[in-house]
């Protein structure tokens, strides 16, 4: 089964575009922050994380209530995958369990039963080291790595990318919420929305050449990814401006925020600027000077990909 668009796929893709929001026109990236996020200690406060998420979602969807916002992302009864980033272990530069708990709570209020929420990443061991295992998010939310769920047998192909797709993505999930972390990447420059989907394929190690360009954009174009990812919620509570993707405490800082957008390219562009600003503050050279400027962000926006906007004139940066 090679993934090519037939009539049914086209209809699905159109529906996906409705949910995910059109990438033509203006894109909105919401940044919600809370300087008192960890007033009680190193771990973000549960209620404040939920509040941070609610403010971001409402601003992103112009909604009066958080649940109304979520209802613009998912439909009752759908199976929703939460693609986290668990590579760096718990409490570090991985997606926060607190954030995922908050997302699960709101999804259930929007009509998605707990048993139809699936937290997934490349390896079950990565998920476990980041604090995600069956039972950690309530009795019925499942946590599963691609190594357990397996991959499709046939290649999905776009441009320079040819990969086997995670069965969790292709067979289990109707929709995916992308939950990356705001951080530097030693090869690809940065890793946030687009690159986090390397966790959906069997061969990410093949796609780090040339700073990941065009591979990051090409992988995101693979139909199961493009059709199912509806929203990115980037965990920037602890961000990292150097030394990633492994956790390096000396180069991490408490940004105490989330970046939320329906446009993964715009989110990556804004996130990249945040990292560059922090690097400059710390006296570090720019990513361009280090020959790891994430040029794949522009590639993702080009006429061949059209995954979103990288032109700051077309991006509304909304801070709440």
């Amino acid at each position, binding site marked *: 089964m090679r993934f090519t668009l037939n009539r049914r796929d086209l209809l699905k893709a159109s529906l996906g575009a409705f949910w995910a929001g059109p990438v033509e026109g203006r894109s909105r990236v919401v940044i919600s922050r809370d300087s008192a996020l960890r007033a009680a200690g190193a771990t973000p406060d549960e209620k404040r994380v939920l509040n941070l998420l609610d403010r971001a979602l409402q601003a992103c969807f112009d909604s009066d209530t958080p649940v109304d916002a979520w209802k613009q992302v998912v439909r009752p009864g759908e199976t929703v995958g939460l693609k986290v980033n668990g*590579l*760096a272990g718990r409490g570090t530069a991985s997606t926060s369990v607190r954030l995922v708990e908050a997302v699960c709570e709101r999804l259930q209020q929007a009509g998605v039963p707990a048993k139809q929420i699936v937290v997934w990443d490349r390896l079950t061991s990565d998920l476990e080291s980041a604090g995600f295992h069956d039972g950690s998010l309530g009795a019925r939310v499942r946590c599963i790595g691609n*190594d357990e769920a397996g*991959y499709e047998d046939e*290649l999905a*192909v776009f441009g320079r990318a*040819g990969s*086997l797709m995670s069965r969790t993505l292709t067979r289990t999930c109707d929709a995916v919420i992308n939950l990356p972390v705001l951080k530097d990447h*030693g*090869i690809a420059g940065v890793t946030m929305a687009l690159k986090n989907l390397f966790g959906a394929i*069997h*061969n990410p*190690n*093949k796609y*780090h*050449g040339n700073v990941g360009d065009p591979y990051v954009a090409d992988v995101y174009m693979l139909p199961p990814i493009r059709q199912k990812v509806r929203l990115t919620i980037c965990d920037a509570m602890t961000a990292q401006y150097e*030394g*990633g*993707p*492994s956790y*390096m405490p000396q180069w991490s800082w408490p940004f105490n925020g989330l970046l939320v957008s329906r446009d993964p390219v715009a989110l990556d562009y804004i996130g990249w600027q945040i990292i560059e600003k922090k690097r400059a503050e710390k006296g570090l050279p720019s990513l361009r000077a280090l020959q790891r400027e994430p040029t794949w962000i522009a590639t993702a926006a080009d006429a061949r990909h059209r995954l979103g906007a990288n032109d700051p004139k077309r991006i509304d940066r909304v801070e709440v």
Partner: protein
Amino acid sequence: MDRREFLQSAALPSLAVLAAGRAAAAADSDAPFTVEARHYEKLANRKIRCKLCPRECVIDDRERGYCGVRENRGGAYYTLVHSRICAAHIDPMEKKPFFHFAPGTLAFSVATAGCNVNCRMCQNWDISQVRPEQVRATRISPRDLAQLARQYRCPSIAYTYSEPVVFYEYVIDAARAARAVGVKNVVVTGGFIQEDPLRELCGYVDAVKVDLKGITEKFYKDVVNGELKPVLNALVTLRRQKMWTEIVYLVIPTLNDSDQEFRDLARWVRSELGTDVPLHFSRFHPEYLLKNLPVTPLATLERAKAAADAEGLHYVYLGNVPGHPAESTYCPKCRRVVVERAGLTVQSIHLRKGKCQYCGQSIPGIWEV
């Protein structure tokens, strides 16, 4: 191959699959296959730089290199595929192909997962382009491999199918064990390896076949996801190490099949390696990411051979065209057939102590093992 050998070779795949099934169930962990890598350097902040292949991946803690089979664990670098065999078959030596090394004998042929390039025409991508945990495998220790080769009456072990460079440590250990029991070792590789590890490898193996996939950097960049220059350097190193070497050039319609490329290839071989290095032009079949291209026309292969013959190379062959006269070896002096082949079968050998039985011309190769 006689009837008994054929039956043995037919039985082996099922044996291997059964063994792999057991191993897959038992070995959820990488632990039995994890051995520290031989060629890398430690960097600051628990990073490492791999020094095995010219890519020189700089790898963070808990990450893997391009090959997908080597992992940084806390600042030390490990292969995850030592003894982790995902393919084992008994093949004729001609299938590798080696035409000037032990003709008519069998090679116990093994592979692990992984590769350090990503050729868009790869015929074995289902094992070469996956991570070790994504393919069924069984544990065959170096000593067991040597014993299996003897048990199945294979004078040689071939490290092949995927890319032996990425299971380098296993090749070294297995080759050492094989030599101890009188079994030879041959390597089938893309030649994308640094000089130091290659020189070390030459101390343990008996012959190397290099897939020279193109003769331009553009082809290597666009189709192979690698570089040409290090492969050419590796071929020169092999010659300096006096390693028996044969070259295969897979001819892919529209991508590497121009007269200029055939001439450039033959001229480079003649000037850097000499006229006695066997050069095999092999027919492409559409596979993996190049399913849009046709099978190589026979006329194209014959054009390639004519170009190489015209440059004075003595042993130019055509591959994947069973029954073609260019499968056989001809004496460059008297032009008689000295090794007659049909497909992968050797029909007759007319050599005496490595010389043409008709005119006495020395024919380069390792004819007896």
